[in-house]
């Protein structure tokens, strides 16, 4: 049975209740991937596989497709969550706190609700 990316959302919530920056950063990353993977799979099921020149393009391709489908709320919020995830995964000079992790989880959870309603 395929892995359900929503399990990442549960993991993200648990990590956001932790007490280390490592946990907060990982929480943000899992929040992003929970909804990103869900959206990617839903789009590919409905519209076919994304054609990629490079694997890293998938994040932008998914966001572009949401804009083409005029799912603006999801596109904009996923884009914001992607920025949080980029900060958490790559920018070590930034201080990432529990509030950042909690807000990213809230954002991911909100995106999930929007997906359920419109995708």
């Amino acid at each position, binding site marked *: 049975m395929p892995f359900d990316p929503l399990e990442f959302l549960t993991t993200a919530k648990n990590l956001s209740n932790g007490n280390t920056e490592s946990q907060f950063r990982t929480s943000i990353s899992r929040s992003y991937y929970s909804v990103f993977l869900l959206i990617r799979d839903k789009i590919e099921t409905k519209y076919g596989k994304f054609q990629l020149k490079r694997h890293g*393009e998938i994040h*932008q391709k998914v966001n572009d497709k949401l804009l083409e489908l005029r799912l*603006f709320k999801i*596109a*904009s*919020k996923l884009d*914001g969550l992607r920025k949080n995830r*980029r900060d958490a995964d*790559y920018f070590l000079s930034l201080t990432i706190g529990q509030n950042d992790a909690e*807000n990213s989880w809230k954002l991911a959870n909100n995106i999930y609700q929007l997906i359920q309603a419109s995708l």
Partner: protein
Amino acid sequence: MFDPYPQATFSDTIPTTLSNITIPQTIVQRKAPKIEFVGLKISPEVSEFLNNNPSVTIRMCEITDKVNNALGLDIVPQLEIIHDEESDEFSKLAFVYGIQGKTYDDLLKIWDDVAEQVYTNLDLETSKRISIVLDTV
């Protein structure tokens, strides 16, 4: 102190409200690398992005007007270039709004209105080059 990026102020050539006004791209491109758009401070990196993406440049004020209308506030966003760490070919301009006096739950509701107002009448190519980010301060 020496400023390697002398400022150019557009307020003498461009009206304060730019909605529905097409700015000749040559004006934008010929000015100094650090641009000030009536209170918007723009870094050299953002300036370079704007020079390379004139469709974003000419709609910047329209975008910020729409966000502020949706917010019911008058906030100057911080402009950041977001590079995709997994795909170095891509970058976009983020309008980052730090909002006081609201909870993050409030912002999530407001964000829906902001997204609809900004993107509904924006051409697709420009939409793909921008990002709107709301956060609490």
